[in-house]
């Protein structure tokens, strides 16, 4: 799969980007943090797709996972807490030529940025959204997040969280015009890679929730899942996330799920005894706002002036 997508010939490619060409500053996440795995997967995908680093933009908000752009050697936008989506939409609005990733966390996306999350899904611009969900606020040191499980103790709920967690999948699947919703886990690199790749290839907003281990604050939450893979259900389908048979065998619990079936996707998202991993939903024909906002890009200076003159003249005495 490596190398540029062109007909085979004997000439060496003009430019061949290696993994190093996508590696920015040394990642300063804790050892054992699931974010490292996601970073590796995205860099590998960029290499495999030979994305020109100058044409690649990673946008994030604030939080542990939002440090992501600093560790890529592409263009990056490390923004404000909760506000990665409007920024990414603004970048995309006039730049159909860029390859775009948005990295966000459960606090960033599902708490302070909730309004933007809903509307970004509805706008359905061509963005690959990676929600790195570790069920906790890490950077600010152990506060309950919207996805923290009931009873979990944190610095803001020392006697245990009193509310059930918000389900990012069912929320996203409830938003009109959602076009791609998937879930994966950070501790299975092939599935992680394949999911991000499929999301990247989708034209529109692809939303990928990644169950991400936080060794520091929520190690026990996913350790349990990791040890008992029956708590995970691999979604299989010919239109789903491709995964080699050898890796499929790592998932004892598998279910056939048609990603074109929205009611089935919603039902699947709401299962609370297992985490469904794979592609829950895809709709290639959802309306795309970026196709609208990019109109008129080719207008010449003369055309712009003529249009302005026309509107200005309406006020002439």
């Amino acid at each position, binding site marked *: 799969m490596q190398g540029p997508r062109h007909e085979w010939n004997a000439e060496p490619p003009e430019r061949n980007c290696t993994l190093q060409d996508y590696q920015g500053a040394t990642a300063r996440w804790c050892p054992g943090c699931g974010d490292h795995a996601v970073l590796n997967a995205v860099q590998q995908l960029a290499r495999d797709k030979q994305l020109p680093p100058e044409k690649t933009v990673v946008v994030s908000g604030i939080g542990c996972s939002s440090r992501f752009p600093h560790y890529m050697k592409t*263009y990056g936008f490390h923004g404000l807490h909760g506000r990665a989506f*409007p920024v990414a939409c603004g970048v995309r609005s*006039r730049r159909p030529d860029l390859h775009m990733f948005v990295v966000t966390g459960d606090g960033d996306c599902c708490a302070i940025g909730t309004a*933007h999350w809903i509307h970004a899904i509805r706008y359905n611009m061509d963005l690959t959204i990676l929600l790195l969900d570790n069920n906790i606020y890490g950077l600010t040191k152990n506060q309950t997040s919207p996805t923290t499980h009931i009873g979990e103790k944190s610095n803001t709920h020392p006697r245990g969280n009193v509310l059930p967690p918000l389900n990012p999948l069912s929320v996203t699947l409830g938003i009109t015009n959602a076009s791609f919703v998937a879930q994966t886990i950070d501790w299975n690199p092939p599935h992680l890679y394949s999911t991000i790749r499929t999301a990247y290839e989708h034209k529109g907003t692809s939303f990928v929730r990644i169950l991400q281990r936080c060794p520091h604050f929520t190690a026990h939450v996913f350790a349990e899942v990791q040890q008992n893979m029956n708590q995970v259900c691999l979604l299989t389908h010919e239109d789903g996330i491709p995964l080699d048979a050898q890796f499929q065998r790592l998932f004892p619990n598998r279910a056939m799920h048609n990603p074109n079936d929205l009611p089935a996707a919603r039902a699947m998202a709401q299962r609370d005894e297992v985490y469904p991993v794979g592609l829950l939903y895809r709709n290639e024909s959802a309306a795309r706002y970026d196709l609208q906002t990019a109109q008129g890009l080719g207008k010449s200076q003369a055309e712009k002036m003529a249009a*302005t003159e026309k509107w200005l003249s309406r006020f*002439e005495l």
Partner: protein
Amino acid sequence: MPTSIADAATAKPAGAVQIVGQHIVEIVSDSGEGAQTCGQMFADLCAHNGNGIWTVEIIPAEIEPPSRSRAGASGNRIRLGSKPVTNAGDCADVVVALNEQVLYSRIDAGALHAGTAVFVDRTWAENADEAVRRRYAEAMEDFARFGYAVVEVPIEAECRKHTDDPKKGKNMWVLGLLCALYDLPDAGVRDNIAKRFAKKGDTVVQKNLDLFADGYEWAIAHVERRYRVPADKRTQPMVVMNGNQALALGVMAAGIEVCSMYPITPATSASHFLANALQEAGGFVHQAEDEIAAIGFAIGASYAGKTAVTITSGPGLALKTEFLGYAVMTEVPLVVIVVQRGGPSTGLPTKIEQGDLLAALYASPGDSPKIVMAPATIEECFYFVITARKLAEEFRGPVMILSDANLATGQQPFPKPQLRSSWLAPPVDQAPWDSTVPPFAWDAETGLSRRPIPGQRGGEYVLTGLAHDQASHVAYESAINQKSMEMRSRKLAVLQAALRPPAIHGEPEGDLLVIGWGSTLGSIEEAVDELRSEGRLVSSIHLRFLSPMEPGLKSIFQRFRKVMTVEVNYSDPIDAPYITPEARRYSQLAQLLRSQTLIDIDCWSQVPGSPIPPSRIAAELRRRLELQGKEN
């Protein structure tokens, strides 16, 4: 019965035509009766005639408030003159009211004085409801007592000759009346009416033309005193528009392709205009999910190479402040237009105030130096956007334009701008970037630097709101933070060095210098001229740049015995309980100037929700001069 103006003109006129240099006319009605349309069309006619004009919208707070209620008045004030008109003026000379209750709201607002000619629809005297008839009769007694020259006009009765639904026709009838009243030639007006109603079909067009002609004829036959405001022949092409339209056209003329907004009064009409027009210039309007997303989207577009604009008002500015600080910190070019309204909180959403100056300068965490400009005329609304985009890119950061509700809805003619290609944003630079040049290669002297844009090979970097060094790497050393703060601040000093000191209206020395900013220009200068004609040594300056301020202020101030600002925002009155010089809270520009110059600058400011008329300013200036005389 004559059916055209030509016929009407041959009818025997009731009274003589008086020549006047300027006049103020208001038309008010219940919301939905078209008084605003009538006022705008009348203003257009005056401007076409070559008169100077300034208009102010009279807007109720609700879309459809209860009829015949004082707070429901909707309409327009038009001040027309032989010379250019710079402000809405003082009391109205003529008011046309479609019912007597809405007129009370104008009386409450101080818009009338003894002698104002009042034309009021007398249909209410014959209303089926006894209470309505009684209120009308009481009002007529009041108006007579107040000294108004009341003319009871059978507006509804006349309109019924042409339409079964006079609520929808009275405004054209009144337009006819006003045209006759001001002896305006009918050239163009019939075309205007035809154009405005063309979509509704020939019958509607004809009906409105008949209403217009009937109103015209009635006035010729019945009104005793008519007026003419002579106009000079135009020597150059002129345009007439309001401030929000001028801002919107400025956006287009600047080559800005992305306008990202969230609906908020009184800013939104600028975006309405762009929603129609910008597409033809290759751009679009993004209506975001909230004010924060609106600026975030604009910053995203700017970062990717297309300097964008976001348009809002005070409460929106409050929500945008975190992103504004981000744009300062990351040096992203951005144009932020704030059309101010009354605050705090929801305040006076449709009314005039200059209350957001300090918020514009300081309402971001930490030190966030940014450029802030304030147009003082409709014409400047147009040109300032073009300047703002250039400054945003040259100085690499957000540039704010502070307009206000007075400019937003006021109409004024100005010479038609000759568009230039040099005003347009250049195409996005996608040439390779010299990778040895960091993304923040601050010039040690000026703090200026060029930015790489996504797509430029070799320029890859990560924009971050964290303290960062020249390479945009997260700063872990304290010296870097000090240095980068200094560099961002230095840019304002560099801009100031390129600006000229403000022009002085009047003599460069004297007893009193008045300082203003924004839409108060015309009122202040008119007041100053009045005092100067009385032999008083008063001058004024008007600031267009608030951050950085124009240079040379201190040396200008030192040549006057007293310096004070006049603003439409809050300050403590000097003679109120507990208000000592130490306790007194000054108006916003005064606070800035005091701290900047260490000169004891006084202020006079008011928050009536409407433009401060020149006479009130003049009266206050006289009072201050007299106080000063006593002190000496």
